């Protein structure tokens, strides 16, 4: 049995044109899954449905066998989502207060919050920024803060929407290092990205979405063979296609 099981999930905004059609996806505990696909294929909507920000029309969402498709609040608590626009997710006046925001919403006593904030900040390597205002942070730091903000709430599954978008090379490497470290720590991670060449070597599974459905779900070395027919760029090198094990920006 998979850690996260999504079966025949459907969603539409107006009950006429479905955005998600019978989406099925399985994610193992402690794995890193990459979800890719054309723009408008429904990747972000799927993340928001899983998170509980959108209600699902039909289907099943189960974590460790427990079904949550009707329990939006419970899904909201168990799934963490880092938006593509990291700055829109940050609500605290300072880095410290932003990480504290979620802990307070979980009713964690003030005396216990500091340790969690410190350890999360250390994990995200933003412990030296705790007193800073979010507006003064760089893109990479903001993205790490956004991850810290949701990670402090101890979610069961961490989802990131285009975590490398708008970042420079150092920022991308920082985020990638964090993701690889978190995977090593046993976190279950789902990443939506178009930039397979940066991360696929670390992934356990590659899923491709097209027109609101998952059309490929396999180990990266198999799935990569047929991504191009769904509008996904397959990274190349001088000698042809880039091997999956070389698809990383970490050396």
């Amino acid at each position, binding site marked *: 049995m998979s850690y996260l099981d999504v079966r025949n999930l459907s969603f539409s905004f107006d009950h006429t044109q479905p955005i998600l059609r019978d989406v099925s996806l399985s994610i193992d505990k402690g794995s890193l899954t990459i979800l890719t696909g054309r723009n408008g294929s429904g990747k972000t909507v799927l993340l928001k449905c899983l998170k509980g920000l959108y209600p699902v029309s039909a289907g099943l969402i189960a974590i460790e066998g427990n079904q949550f498709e009707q329990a939006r609040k419970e899904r909201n608590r168990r799934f963490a989502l880092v938006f593509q626009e990291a700055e829109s997710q940050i609500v*605290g006046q300072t880095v410290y207060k932003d990480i504290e925001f979620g802990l307070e919403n979980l009713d964690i006593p003030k005396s216990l919050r500091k340790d969690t904030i410190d350890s999360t900040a250390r994990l995200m390597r933003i412990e030296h920024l705790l007193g800073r205002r979010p*507006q003064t942070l760089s893109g990479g730091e903001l993205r790490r803060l956004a991850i810290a903000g*949701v990670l402090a709430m101890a979610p069961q599954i961490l989802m990131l929407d285009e975590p490398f978008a708008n970042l420079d090379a150092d920022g991308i490497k920082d985020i990638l290092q964090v993701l690889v470290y978190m995977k090593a720590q046993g976190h279950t991670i789902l990443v939506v990205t178009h930039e397979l060449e940066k991360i696929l070597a670390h992934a356990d599974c590659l899923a491709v979405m097209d027109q609101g459905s998952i059309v490929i779900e396999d180990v990266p070395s198999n799935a990569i063979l047929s991504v191009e027919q769904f509008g996904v760029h397959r990274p190349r090198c001088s000698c042809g296609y880039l091997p999956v094990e070389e698809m990383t920006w970490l050396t």
Partner: protein
Amino acid sequence: MRVPAGRGDDMADVVLFSYREEATVLHRLHPLTKVLAMIAFSIALSLKSGNEPTPLTLLSCIPIIMMIVVRFPLRIYVKRMGFFVIVACIIGGFRYLATQQAVTSIMEVVRFFDFIAIGLLFADSTAADDLSRAIGTLFGRIIGKSGYRFAATVEIALYSLPLVFETVAKCMDARKSRLESAWKHPVRQSISIGTSTLWMIIARGEQLADALEGRLFDPSRPRKSNWSFTWCDILFLLVVLLLLAGIWIMGTTFS
């Protein structure tokens, strides 16, 4: 816990009505003290006695002195205040057309900038979060959960205010970068800016709502305030009220 501002804050792009983490007298006052002082100042500005030039000038000195005291970065803010300058011109222009008196229209403009200045000072020195907690603690005792919900509404409104100005600035920058002339088709341009800004604000609002919901924010949940009233608050309120009363008396004497 109060977190001191760190290095790099100077690099921040200043957004109107945003909060700065500082350790000035104004920043140390209880948020409700500042609300009371702001209400008192606004009433004094709106009273008939404030229509005389001398009381109005004295009243205007209060925000100016406060700005000096808190080392308010006015020079940086001025660049972002084009919108208020336009509104002030409209107010002054219409006032002049109505009264044919230059002094009256100038006073109207001064009064308008006094309101803006006091709002900027308040937003600069009061974190939305602190204000919300202070209001929530007070109203929560009186009307229960509705009090906390009201406080959360105030917080989100205060939090959204800089977002609006930030969005307008982004929208203007985007148009400028595509070489739009400021004076060609001004009406069409204003409507277009207004519409696209509105859409951007709605999009930002949706993102903010998702962000708050995504992090389990519950507006009716009690959130305790770390603030308590001190002698400084009482002293500050007394000074402000005495000043305002003095100016009001002076105003009624003049009129």
